[in-house]
């Protein structure tokens, strides 16, 4: 019977380890003011917009402060629409002629969150017609999956389109695709300027590019072979590249539209399981930003040669809540910010917490003496190892 009571105390300890830190954070958390940093194509330095001493400030790396209109001029690649409306749009930047069309075609925004990767995906994909001749993409009327062959499913009847499936499977076999597919990546939304299909890692870790062109299967071996953790297809206006990807080495790479050439993108140190990445590109520079728990780190790289020209690190203004580590011996999380999955994670704090746990043990001893209760070793073992969680659980659920 005492073993059952220990299970009750254990479940109470784990529940308290989940709830108490959450409640304390709810009561004491303070907001972190975020900043926006962009590399200026005009003065070739980073400019940051942020709240400082209660005011919204726009300033350069050197400390020059700008008002709103000046900031628009310093960052023309970002604020070109405002400059155009104010008739302040320059004719040339960086000795190159610029116009709105050129800027908008070359501007792109790419964002990666760990939750993009760490979530369940249903393995059904719509294969759009890439050369429909229409401005807008329309839904293809079927979805495909790749197991031992590629199969197209008709949603209206929930059946396999055998003719189309056989046609495409034949092309896959001719190109040396090894079934089943290990991973498939693509942009499944129809809200994009054009469609570049899917990138598929086959059974031998070879990367293939799949599209549907005039109803026919377009499948190309990119000649890349290796592990890919995650690949993020893009449809930039200038059609210079297909996708970004990374492997376990945490190096960001790009697949260009020039014969699937792969090159490395200079990027601040990143752990793709924990950190966020965003990339704002224009015709001159790409801003590569990695967001950590306590800071943003940015690189500015040239858009044509992909060479790093500048970098900056901006720490967050966070007040550390170190007292958590002196009260709680561990925390239990079920939800993590970097994943859509629910998984229990236990984070242990410092070893010195055992001294605080002895204090809780002493409190329990005094409580037992006042209430004239018998003292049991098992209760003290719980309190020594689980601290305040054990103290509360033992006081409520003890059953000697």
């Amino acid at each position, binding site marked *: 019977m005492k073993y059952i009571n220990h299970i*009750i105390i254990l479940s109470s300890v784990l529940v308290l380890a989940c709830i108490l830190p959450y409640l304390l954070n709810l009561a004491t958390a303070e907001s972190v003011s975020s900043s926006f940093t962009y590399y200026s194509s005009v003065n070739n330095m980073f400019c940051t917009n942020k709240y400082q001493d209660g005011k919204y400030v726009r300033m350069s790396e050197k400390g020059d402060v700008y008002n709103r209109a000046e900031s628009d001029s310093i960052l023309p690649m970002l604020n070109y629409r405002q400059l155009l409306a104010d008739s302040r749009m320059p004719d040339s930047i960086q000795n190159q002629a610029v116009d709105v069309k050129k800027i908008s075609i070359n501007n792109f925004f790419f964002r990666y969150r760990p939750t993009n990767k760490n979530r369940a995906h249903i393995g059904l994909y719509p294969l759009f017609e890439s050369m429909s001749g229409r401005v807008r993409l329309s*839904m293809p009327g079927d979805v495909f999956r790749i197991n031992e062959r590629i199969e197209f499913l008709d949603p209206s009847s929930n059946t396999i389109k055998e003719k189309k499936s056989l046609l495409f499977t034949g092309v896959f076999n001719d190109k040396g695709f090894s079934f089943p597919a290990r991973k498939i990546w693509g942009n499944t939304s129809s809200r994009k300027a054009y469609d570049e299909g899917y990138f598929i890692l086959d059974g031998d870790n070879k990367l293939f590019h799949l599209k549907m062109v005039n109803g026919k299967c377009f499948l190309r071996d990119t000649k890349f072979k290796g592990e890919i953790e995650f690949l993020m297809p893009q449809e930039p206006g200038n059609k210079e590249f297909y996708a970004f990807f990374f492997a376990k080495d945490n190096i960001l790479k790009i697949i260009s539209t020039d014969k699937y050439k792969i090159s490395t993108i200079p990027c601040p140190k990143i752990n793709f399981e924990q950190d966020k990445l965003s990339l704002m590109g224009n015709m001159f520079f790409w801003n590569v930003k990695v967001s950590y728990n306590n800071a943003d780190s940015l690189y500015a790289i040239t858009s044509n040669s992909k060479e790093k020209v500048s970098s900056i690190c901006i720490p967050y203004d966070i007040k550390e809540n170190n007292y958590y580590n002196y009260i709680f011996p561990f925390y239990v999380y*079920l939800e993590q910010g970097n994943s859509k999955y629910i998984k229990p994670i236990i984070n242990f704090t410092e070893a010195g917490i055992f001294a605080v746990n002895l204090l809780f043990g002493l409190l329990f001893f005094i409580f037992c003496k006042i209430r004239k209760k018998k003292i049991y070793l098992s209760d003290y073992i719980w309190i020594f190892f689980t601290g305040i969680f054990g103290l509360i659980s033992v006081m409520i659920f003890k059953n000697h």
Partner: protein
Amino acid sequence: MFKNIAYKEWLKCRYAFIAIVITAIAQIVYVFVGISKSMRFVGSEHIWDVIVNRDVFLLSSLKYMPIIAACTIGLVQFIPEIMQKRIKLSLHLPLPENTILKYMLGFSQVLLLMFFACHIILIISILSFYFPLEIVVSAFYTLLPWYLSAFVALAFIPTICFEPVLIRKICLFILGLALVKIFYISDFPSAYIFNIVNCIILCVAVIPFAYISIDRFKRGVSD
């Protein structure tokens, strides 16, 4: 003796169980008529698109049905036992007390397990008519934690009912609520796919909690 105890428990639960079965079937019919209507109005392709690419879960209205079913069965089974402390009569049967409790708990757990098995088989069968295997599997993994939460709730009901001390009863209620909440943290499709084993371990681990309460009840513990 098991058959006699099972029959006694069935007599307590039968009307509630029949009401639950009728409600569950009506709910399934309502949900799938709604899905069918949506498919006629916006097209099957759009429905598949919102499920696959926008993470919409069409069966979210079934979320609380398992736990409501478990609480209903648990309450109709154990509330009569604590009225005027009628459980004492059951504990005086010519069987070890733990065996009697095992039969009583086991009856409702097995009844619920059979009901949920039939319920989920029915849902999967109808889903397979409209959707491919990938969507059906995703729906199964999304529904499963909600079914498992019902077993935790069912285990806590006799634990709370038989506990003689009010303060500990309230604390057990809060503990039960917190443990059940674990299964409802996220509605994201297949969010619990890597945590199913932990959930099943939790369901099994809480089953013997009622033994502590009945032991305390027998001993007449008052603090």
